[in-house]
């Protein structure tokens, strides 16, 4: 799985960073998403999907690798 984020869409709701701090963080200045791990290990894939679903502005995308 490859994860990408779009900071032009992100509003810094922090849903992803709350759900999965291993993969997502937030910039301390504007709260926008910071991707920590673009290729998270398999055991986190379900949680990534969950984060995708929780994002209120669809700023997270995944592609199969």
């Amino acid at each position, binding site marked *: 799985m490859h994860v990408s984020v779009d900071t032009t869409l992100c*509003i*810094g*709701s*922090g*849903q992803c*960073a*709350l759900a999965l*701090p291993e993969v997502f*963080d*937030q*910039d*301390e*200045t*504007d*709260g*926008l998403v910071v991707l920590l791990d673009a290729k998270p290990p398999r055991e986190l894939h379900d949680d990534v999907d*969950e984060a995708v*679903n*929780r994002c*209120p*502005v*669809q700023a997270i995308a995944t592609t199969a690798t």
Partner: protein
Amino acid sequence: MSAEPVPAHPTGRGRPFDPPQELMEWQAREPLQRMRYPDEHVGWVVTSHELARAMLTDARFSARSEFKRAPVHRPGTEPFFGVPAAPGWLVDMDPPEHTRLRQQLAGQFTARRMRELRPRLTGIVDELLSAMERGGPGTDLVEAFALPLASQVICELLGVPSGDRAEFQRNSRILFNLTSTAADTSAALDRLYATMQDIAAGGGEPGETSGLLQALTEDGTLDTEEIAGVGVLLLTAGHDSTTGSLGLSVFALLSHPDELARLTADPSIVDNAVEELLRYLTVFHFGVPRTPLEDLEFAGRQLRAGDSITVSLSAANRDPRWFQDEADRLDLTRRTTGHVAFGYGIHQCLGQNLVRMEMRTALPALFQRFPTLSLAVPAENVPLSTDMSVYGVHRLPVVW
């Protein structure tokens, strides 16, 4: 032309935790349908989960206050229709004005910061529970717990000096009470603004705790009026929504003893339990207003520029097409992903992770301290704020 009269937004609830039945009937029959507003404007109401999320992420729908109509009339208050957003009130703005403010604030509400607040939250919760214990074996849980918790947390977050907090709380309640007169509301608002401007301008005693208002002032991007506006917005929203969510959650758990037993037996389910309570109770029960700025087609219907639309979060959160297994049942371990208790799209609640942390801290601690907590009055005598813009319990008499 249909001869059927266009209905108004319902306010009566058959059962305290369920949205008005009419909303659910509309959802099943016609999830985007006409609705009459208090000023006789005929607009729309959205009741399905699918259309609610679609509309709240569609940039063609404006959140600007000058187009907003509240679906339910607040006696004694002026409608905000026609009035542009006050400085700092990002909920009433569209991009790019909204974006500029949101980014200033989002950095203050990151998940990391909210997690770091946890020890302080635990401290406040423990103090309040100890005070309850000393005064026991009975109290009003709203006055003794939910309200002071919400109030102390938002005041700390903002950096409101402790000496100003009692008056802040009074003014906030006047502001959001639907039965307040226009004069009272406006006076309360003026007092809140004045104190906020004071704080933003660096007032207060030297060495006072620093919070969001001071951080925004130091940053210098927003002017004093905007900072005061942000402060009033966050304070009022923080008070009422958190108080409502907490009070109503305790009432719901006491009314569902099997679910409460699951939570006390296994506190590790608390994160999901909080999401489920947020979904099930949806305290923003009059939904969120949106308006198309041009004639457009949405979900197969022709909408006109200026049509008022209410997106019913309460109805969307009970949509069986999304939540499946008996969406009307409180189930603390159900899959809750996608609930819209905090709204959806760019305006989704800024303080949502703070509310989550408060509830995750407060609920297990309350039931751990008072394992025999129960209602002191019959459930039907618990006064509900069906008249408030945020749903909740006015009082929750309990014993232990």
